[in-house]
């Protein structure tokens, strides 16, 4: 009952902010004026904000910016000992630094390290937290490029990346993060520059509990669907997520931007119902998966679960099954990857549900920006088949889906399964893998599959139960994150360029409307079918075998 109340509160809160935030973001990305602070930034980096960019220029800017970010973040970690507030933690080892640099720039925030032991405050704040903002802003910028492709007609420009990046950060992420951080501090999240506090344990022994400027990072970690915690235990740690209210607020922050971006999309393409239909598909899939995970966790087998009244192993008492299932479903459905429970301890079906959320391709509702462009890609695939079946050259939002559009959509769709399947397959071939796993058999396979699904989808949540510090895992997972992020981004921007060039085809009675339940069904079906057809063989040997046992 309390669990249902949480869900209702969450949905009501999202409904309240949906219009104002969605419309605000639409204004941000279409505003003609520049704020003074923004104009100052453009002058420093010598960007002419009024000039639109061709998709190739836009894409080069995204890639160039991200490459510089990776190098900067890598060096910052390697040179940690020279920085203030390093808490004496020394240079970050090369493998970790490589993996972490990619992880935070790709908005994955996979953590192959223990923050309390490796990262000092400067790297956390000037490196990781900065990327929490910027990687999120990049995702939104790419999504806006695609949206402009739909909205424009006969144009060769899709906007200016630098303007989108700066505005997304300055006008959306920073203000939201600021307010959220204060709310989180109010709810008891720690905010301190001290390295830790010394405590006397009940048995008389002494220990130090690490502290960190957590609240400010926690806010953007959730808002930007990043997920990298300042503490190893992530949002299960009481200093990051002290109680039921903070838990609910964090889930709200996770879903906030991806959900509201559907409104932004509808507004910018001139038909809000186009946005609502995407939201409804996201919502139905999110709800269905929540039901599956929740039910699975409440009905775990085994003596311990029977005595506890549900599967409570690996969950925090202060969140319970409902709070954990809700968090797990939201974090895997959005590419956030923060966790407030051990997903490894979930039942076969529950853990499989979290895994499937990622294998959908992170679009229920997906990461900031990336969720929107991912579901638009699926919408185009669905419309290609649907369009043929009504006897016309397929089109979506008045743009024809020809050779170039289908090729771009196909590449964007192909990237994730490629890295996930090849990565997991290769990992299982290696002799060292079995030793890195906590569990043999089907559950071990789930652990490996989960790791690559998390990296390939830029989710970053860990099933845990697998030690990923070997060079193979650091490197292969790093590459999965890189390709899983930037191959689709390139394809999406190429698509945006091609769509912007096209003239709009007017709507007639022969046009398949993309606002009704029929299209929603078709889109939802395509998302589920593509994931199922691609991953069912692998899932059969992992979660499905576990769940049927």
């Amino acid at each position, binding site marked *: 009952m309390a669990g249902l109340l949480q869900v209702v509160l969450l949905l009501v809160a999202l409904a309240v902010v949906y219009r104002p935030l969605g419309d605000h973001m639409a204004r941000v990305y279409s505003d003609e004026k520049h704020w003074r602070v923004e104009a100052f930034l453009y002058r420093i980096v010598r960007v002419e904000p009024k000039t639109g960019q061709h998709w190739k220029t836009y894409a080069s800017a995204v890639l160039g910016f991200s490459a510089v970010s990776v190098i900067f973040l890598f060096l910052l970690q390697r040179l940690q000992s020279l920085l203030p507030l390093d808490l004496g933690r020394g240079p970050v080892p090369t493998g970790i630094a490589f993996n972490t640099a990619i992880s935070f720039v790709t908005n994955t925030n996979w953590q192959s390290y223990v923050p309390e032991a490796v990262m000092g405050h400067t790297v956390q704040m000037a490196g990781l937290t900065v990327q929490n903002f910027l990687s999120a802003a990049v995702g939104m910028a790419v999504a806006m490029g695609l949206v402009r492709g739909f909205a424009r007609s006969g144009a060769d420009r899709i906007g200016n990346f630098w303007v989108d990046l700066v505005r997304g950060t300055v006008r959306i992420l920073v203000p939201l993060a600021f307010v959220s951080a204060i709310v989180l501090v109010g709810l008891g999240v720690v905010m301190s520059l001290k390295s830790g506090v010394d405590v006397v344990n009940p048995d008389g022994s002494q220990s130090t509990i690490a502290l960190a400027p957590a609240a400010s990072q926690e806010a953007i970690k959730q808002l930007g669907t990043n997920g990298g915690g300042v503490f190893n235990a992530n949002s299960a740690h009481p200093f990051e997520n002290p109680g039921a209210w903070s838990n609910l607020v964090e889930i709200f922050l996770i879903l906030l931007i991806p959900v509201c971006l559907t409104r932004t999309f509808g507004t910018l393409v001139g038909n809000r119902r186009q946005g609502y239909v995407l939201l409804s598909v996201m919502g139905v899939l999110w709800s269905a998966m929540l039901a599956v995970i929740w039910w699975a966790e409440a009905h775990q087998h085994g003596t311990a679960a029977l005595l506890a009244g549900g599967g409570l192993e690996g969950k925090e008492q202060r969140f319970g099954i409902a709070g954990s299932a809700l968090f797990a479903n939201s974090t895997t459905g959005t590419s956030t990857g923060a966790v407030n429970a051990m997903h490894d301890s979930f039942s076969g079906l529950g853990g499989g549900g979290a895994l499937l959320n990622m294998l959908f391709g992170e679009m229920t509702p997906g990461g900031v920006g990336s969720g929107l462009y991912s579901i638009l890609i699926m919408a185009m*695939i669905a419309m*290609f*088949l*649907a*369009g*043929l*079946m*009504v*006897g*016309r*050259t*397929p089109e979506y939002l*008045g743009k024809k*889906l*020809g*050779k170039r*559009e*289908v*090729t771009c959509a*196909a590449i964007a*769709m*192909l990237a994730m*399964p*490629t890295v996930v*399947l*090849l990565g*997991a*397959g*290769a990992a*299982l*071939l290696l002799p060292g*893998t*079995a030793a890195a796993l906590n569990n043999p058999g*089907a559950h071990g*396979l789930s652990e490996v599959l989960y790791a690559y699904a998390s990296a390939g989808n830029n989710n970053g949540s860990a099933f845990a139960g697998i030690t990923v510090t070997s060079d193979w895992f650091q490197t292969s997972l790093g590459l999965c994150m890189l390709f899983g992020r930037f191959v689709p981004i390139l394809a999406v921007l190429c698509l945006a360029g091609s769509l912007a060039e096209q*003239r*709009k*085809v*007017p709507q*007639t*009675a*022969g*046009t*398949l*409307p993309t606002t*009704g339940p*029929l299209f929603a069904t*078709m889109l939802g079906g395509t998302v589920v079918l593509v994931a199922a*057809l*691609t*991953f*069912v*063989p*692998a899932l*059969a*040997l992992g979660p*499905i*075998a576990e769940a*049927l*046992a």
Partner: protein
Amino acid sequence: MTVLTEPKRVGAGVFAPRQLLTSLPDALRKLDPRHQVRNPVLFVVWAGSVLVTVFAVADPSVFSVAVAVWLWFTVLFANLAEAVAEGRGKAQAESLRRAKRDTVAQRIVADGSRERVPGADLRVGDLVVVEAGEVIPGDGDVVEGIATVDESAITGESAPVIRESGGDRSAVTGGTTVLSDRIVVRIATKPGESFVDRMIALVEGARRQKTPNEVALTILLATLTIIFLLAVVALQPMSAYSGARQSVTVLTALLVCLIPTTIGALLSAIGIAGMDRLVQRNVLATSGRAVEAAGDVSTLLLDKTGTITFGNRQATELIPIGVTTVHELAVAARLSSLADETPEGRSIVALCAKEHGLLKGATDRERAAKFVPFTAQTRMSGIDLDGRRVRKGAASAVREWVVDQGGLVPDEVRDVVDRIGAEGGTPLVCAEGRIVRGVIRLSDVVKPGMRQRFGELRAMGIKTVMITGDNPLTARAIAEEAGVDDYLADAKPEDKMALIRAEQEGGRLVAMTGDGTNDAPALAQADVGVAMNTGTMAAKEAGNMVDLDSDPTKLIEIVEIGKQLLITRGALTTFSIANDLAKYFAILPAMFAAVYPQLDRLNIMHLHSPDSAILSAVVFNALVIVGLIPLALRGVRYRPAGAQSLLRRNLLVYGLGGIVTPFAGIWLIDLLVRLIPGM
């Protein structure tokens, strides 16, 4: 120049199962990897077949041999689908060729004399004389004379047609026979590029290129193939980790069952059959692209005359104005129309002859007079005879002419003109010098069933625009009667062009029919331009389709064929993908129930054994291709309807049907397969 003798209707008729057998040699020839590599989906099947065969030879078992055989059948059946479709075209082309023989043409040389040359030596611009009983040696325009021509060799229509110089019925086609009289033809095509040559190439599919949509679909199918390839490749280490290493035979079988073989196999057959269906309706398209565009058309420009209304407007009434008597008007009307070659002009002369006893033909004196021919710009025609200047034409044009000479136009004229126009007739005003003699009423009859057809088009999202040279009042009355969405009145050729451009600017695809030389620019500009076979060479060259029956309403059928082509592709793709669900339920438990017994709960079809389950899925996958060949050739049923209801119906039939059918099919095949010893 080569021609045909036997009259032969083009079109392959319905699909007969016997064609599967006769196409078998062609299908076997297509096993060549150089051919297979053009189709990514089938190339994967071909490569898989080779792989499994190698393993089956190295380590023979009933299972591996059976899988190898059925994988080859899968490739063969796919080739068969293409071969059957091509074979139908080839048979038509063959029957055309068999009837060929060389002709001798009578070419007119510079000094006016004639020389006999082989038809193949004719060049563009040559003038040839063709007399009764002779075969026209090449495509061209009649520049002199009038003749009846038997065009059955091309159109299959046995009734002879009239071809004459001037006007819009001047084009003749090489290979047709002059039945009476004598004409002079100016040759308009090079040898080897004539209409008949193009027709043979077309039905043979020799120059068939993939259409844009076919390319896009192929990319999507290739993507799915890659995804499944990855899924199967990654499955082996996962199986090995789980202690259930799989044989190459089983993995290949899984792969072939998952990739979209059904649509991959039938895709080119669907395209060829789409063209074939057009040919069966006596329409020749210059490219598959045009057929696809037809499915996308959102604006149809239809000439009123002959398309919406029956044939030609006929003069039905003479209304004198002022002091003029009916007889005086009849005399003037007849004089003004003597030179008017249009059907309307002739109908006026005919009316004057029938009801007022005037001469039908022109007297010698009249023939010597100065004729003022009708043009689209002046919209008047007439005669200057012994000082009498008689004109008749559109009300506004004649009024201007009268006023220019200082005459007065009584209000009565406007009243009569408006009344006739409002009643759906066409008023022509007849004037002599400064005096308006009267008004001639031309009446149109709208063809039956047009209103319903336009309603269907509207449901399909297609706007119909009626093009007419009539005044707005007349145009509106007919537009309302016929039920078209819009009309363009007082249309001059450049107006038509402007309308097409305006529609295209708005992103709409435009289709139109035309036959006259002044239609040519518009035909070229339109996305789908259907020229009438009776029309001029210029029109036929400009359009991207030619209707051999010269039936302007055919445009509606062409649109339907274009849509049917796309729907067939979409429906079979959906069917193909939906099939995979049942195959997973058949194959995955078979592969892994040994290590995870709980997975046997997914064996909901209760298939006999792992081997029989996998083989049954492979056999089903192969047989479904053969089963769907007739559908691919015929095209899925198309009924004009809105997009939503079309999609709902096709999703239900091919999506849901695609999920259910293989469960039943694989289960039934397993009942037989389990009887094989060793399964």
